[in-house]
């Protein structure tokens, strides 16, 4: 096991380094903005005194490296700064006190996680079952229809899927609500019902990809001698595939599932906007539109971290599912 744990340790370290570099990229990109935050907050009618005050308050008179270190230190202690919108609200209208970016992001992040989990719970079993069926009935009418259908659903934009589902399931046949109005203290079933349409849309997008990869991974193995042996023993095709091919195809399947989960966390932006789902993607787009830099920066970092983490998980799981690495000679 020493071999595997050292490989995994290396991967974890590599992931951490990647995350650090990504944070530098994001920080530098944000600092490419002309002028600085102070002018952005105050807008057109900024007086020099006001600008210099805000600059001092936010520490913008410090050199770039010091500011980066401060930002990084803030992230480590859970302090992501305060959004411009909240600052404005506080100074101009005497608003709600100190609402940091972290307080804005956390509830929304948990909403997005909920959506991703619901989607995964529907999509993963569905995709693996359909993939096995497509491999079992390969080159039949079912396989052709599945091929055309999955290819179409992979290549359609998410909002097309979303609006078609809204049209058929919310407007023409009012089965599910078309707006995901989610708030604190809802019961679980109600919440599930409200987030069903966005989850179904995401399911359509990710199932197709996972199903194609499952089918390809299984078909790849069907030419192996041990599959032929199993067939010659007189096993039923279903049993050959489920008992003999599927366990050996697990590594690529797990990999593609993890990659699609990474897509679920990061690719939800458009779907959340369509259904007005109060997730982190919606917050991100809103902040992009009003150029609320601290929020954009923080969301970007969270998305990148989730993406890197899930890719890392995929990597580690595929190492763990490889018997040659688990039991070295």
């Amino acid at each position, binding site marked *: 096991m020493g071999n595997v744990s050292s490989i995994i340790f290396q991967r974890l370290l590599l992931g951490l380094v990647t995350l650090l570099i990504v944070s530098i990229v994001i920080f530098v990109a944000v600092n490419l903005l002309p002028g600085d935050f102070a002018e952005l907050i105050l807008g057109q009618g900024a007086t020099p005194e006001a600008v210099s005050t805000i600059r001092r308050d936010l520490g913008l008179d410090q050199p770039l490296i010091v500011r980066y270190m401060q930002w990084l230190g803030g992230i480590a202690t859970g302090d992501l700064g305060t959004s411009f919108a909240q600052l404005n609200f506080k100074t101009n209208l005497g608003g709600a006190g100190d609402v940091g970016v972290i307080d804005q992001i956390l509830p929304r992040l948990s909403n997005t996680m909920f959506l991703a989990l619901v989607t995964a719970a529907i999509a993963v079993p569905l995709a693996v079952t359909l993939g096995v069926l497509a491999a*079992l009935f390969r080159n039949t009418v079912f396989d052709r229809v599945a091929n055309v259908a999955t290819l179409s659903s992979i*290549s359609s934009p998410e909002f097309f899927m979303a609006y078609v589902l809204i049209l058929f399931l919310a407007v023409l046949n009012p089965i599910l609500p078309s707006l995901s109005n989610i708030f604190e203290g809802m019961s679980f079933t109600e919440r599930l019902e409200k987030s069903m349409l966005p989850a179904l849309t995401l399911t359509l997008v990710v199932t197709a990809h996972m199903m194609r990869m499952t089918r390809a991974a299984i078909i790849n193995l069907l030419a192996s001698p041990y599959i032929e042996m199993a067939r010659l023993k007189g096993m039923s095709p279903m049993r050959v595939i489920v008992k003999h091919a599927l366990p050996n195809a697990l590594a690529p399947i797990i990999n593609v599932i993890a990659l699609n989960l990474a897509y679920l966390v990061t690719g939800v932006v*458009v779907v959340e906007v369509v259904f007005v789902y109060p997730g982190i993607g919606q917050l991100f787009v809103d902040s992009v539109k009003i150029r609320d830099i601290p929020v954009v920066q923080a969301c970007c970092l969270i998305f990148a971290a989730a993406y890197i983490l899930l890719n890392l998980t995929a990597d580690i799981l595929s190492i763990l599912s490889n018997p040659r690495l688990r039991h070295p000679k």
Partner: protein
Amino acid sequence: MSTIVWIVGALVVIAAGGYVFRLLGQMLTGNAPKYRDMSFGVAFGYVLAVALVIGTVWFYLQPTVVEVNGQQTAVASVTFFRWAVQAVILGSVAAYWFKFVGKNFGPEASRKAFRTMPLTASFGILIIGVYTFVAIFAGQIAVTTIIGLAIGFMVILAASRNRLNKDSHAGIGFLLFAILVICSVMYFVGPLAPYGQEEILGAANILPGGNTATGGDPAYPLGTDSIGRDILSRLIYGAQNTVGIAFVTTVLAFAIGVTLGFLAATLGGWLDQLLSRAVDVLMAIPSLIFALLLMTIASVWAPRLGIPLTYFMVLIIAVIDSTRVFRLSRAVASNIVVMDYIEAAKLRGEGLGYLIFKEILPNATAPLLAEFGLRFCFVFLTIAALSFLGVGIQPPLSDWGTMVKDLAPFINFAQFAPLAAVTPLLAAGAIALLTVAVNFVVDWMLHKSSGLKE
């Protein structure tokens, strides 16, 4: 809840039907091998397919208007279902005839390609052709463009005379001549779009359909939007803007990615390390998120520099997507540079330019071409998503993503006015149709080149 009960009930009935179907087959054919060895799954599949066909036909034949309490009420779902079925049938028939024409006319090489391609691929080629035609002739084509094309084609023909054999030279000449004829005809026919894309016409919010009794106007077949621009014209111009910008972006991404990828593979050393690590970092950030971050910054810069935001968007997406192209072209090229013929060329003393353009590029064309198709789809979808979120292609240019965003609320009226709900779906469907078409063609190309038979 009752919906789930209905679905489960239907599945149970179909399962029973499958069992009976297999049993009947075995009894009636005297246990023929086909029925004797049929697994239950296959029998279930047959009955399910028959049930689906019957269900489709039955639902298609439902009346679109029913009388409830003495009032005529439209059943919108039947209307939409009919449109969807008609679109699928029309697409299949068009693809069939296109394949038929391609199979029987033209040079032998293209006839052979058409003979072996599946219906989906011929559908894809047909759609790509239609989109190109609409994109090019959306506005009035200028005389100078036609003359420029004629001169350019002449130069191409003269330059390629000695390099190609006689038949393919004649074939290319005929193709270029046909393009010139089409351009000239379209010059006299005029623009495809009835109005300009920015033109604000008299009345706003005219419903589609052109029926004055239901709030339409025959002058605007698809109606007008909330500030009185003709939706049909904007859809047609959308082909030019959305597809054109996506195409330019993809070409740019390929120019950057392939150049750097080939250089990294041929030169190796620290350049390769530097570029590969930089690409690793850029690829660790999800592309749509990174594009949104950079667009935020660009949207501050754009007005200060006086450069339209759309240029920034093209550049940003090209750079982000070139990382993926870099990965592929580096992988392909590093498989080629270890070949003996590269060694021979190096020993002959050929320069870097000769190696890249004459030795590596011709051998890397097939995978790069397939990647171009896929990359175009991704770029196209990213641009559509950005525009849909409101930070992509900016007005007054019309584009499909923005149109979907602006017209989306009309979907909620589908129950009472099916026509009103059609326009946002048309714009979204236009995006989906093109990406589906390109994917069909790429899928066929990959399948053909991989030689997979299973």
